[in-house]
């Protein structure tokens, strides 16, 4: 479905929903960062790489959602 098919109030609803997803993913990343720092300071390096990869996955999801938001305007 292209963005031109959405009315302006519909776009606002969609971007609000996407924003809630993005904020949830960012909070998950914040938790990952604090847990990783705690593990690093405790000399536990087993979770560092998996956590970094999980954070990258969150970023890719966020970029995809942002791209979709900008696609609504085209």
């Amino acid at each position: 479905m292209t963005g031109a098919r959405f009315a302006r109030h519909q776009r606002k609803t969609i971007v609000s929903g996407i924003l809630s997803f993005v904020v949830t993913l960012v909070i998950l990343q914040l938790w990952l960062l604090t847990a990783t720092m705690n593990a690093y300071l405790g000399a536990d390096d087993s979770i560092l790489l998996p956590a970094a990869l999980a954070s990258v996955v969150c970023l890719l999801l966020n970029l995809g959602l942002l791209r979709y938001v900008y696609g609504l305007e085209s």
Partner: protein
Amino acid sequence: MDDRDSQATTIPPDGRSTAEQPRWRQDFPIDWPEDEYIARRDFTKFMVLTSFAFVVGQWWIVAENFIRRRKARLPVREIARLDDIPVGGSLVFDYPEAHQPAVLVRLDESRCIAYGQKCTHLSCPVIPRVDSGRLRCPCHEGSFDLTTGRPLSGPPRRPLTRITLEIRERRIYATGVEERQV
């Protein structure tokens, strides 16, 4: 077209269509519905930038860990003669570098143990209490097991850093630092 869709017909001041407007005018709309949409979109973009910053932070920790593991082996350093420390006695020394205090405790005739002296809570110096088998942190009443360095009570959650020792010809040498997991 309902009332809300009729808001889409806002006419810019110069009378041209929205698509023909300069970029700055599109980013600073003159009507509320469009402004609310733009605000949410830009906040989403800001959140994605924050997400990128968190990824940078995660990989910075990975890089720091890589550097830490590649560091050269620590020097072997003589701390004291075994006979200079009585059974149940202790000695404070710096290892691996100056201003990094550690505490050595002689457990019996042939066994010694050493830990970094910084409490894993807020870095206060821990004090050995050999009679109760503990290392005590006086700042917040934390205590660690004397033989393992693991936290027993109080706020500390991580064990003390252990200094590895060797005894050769009745001399005590520090040979390395062992960071340990919870």
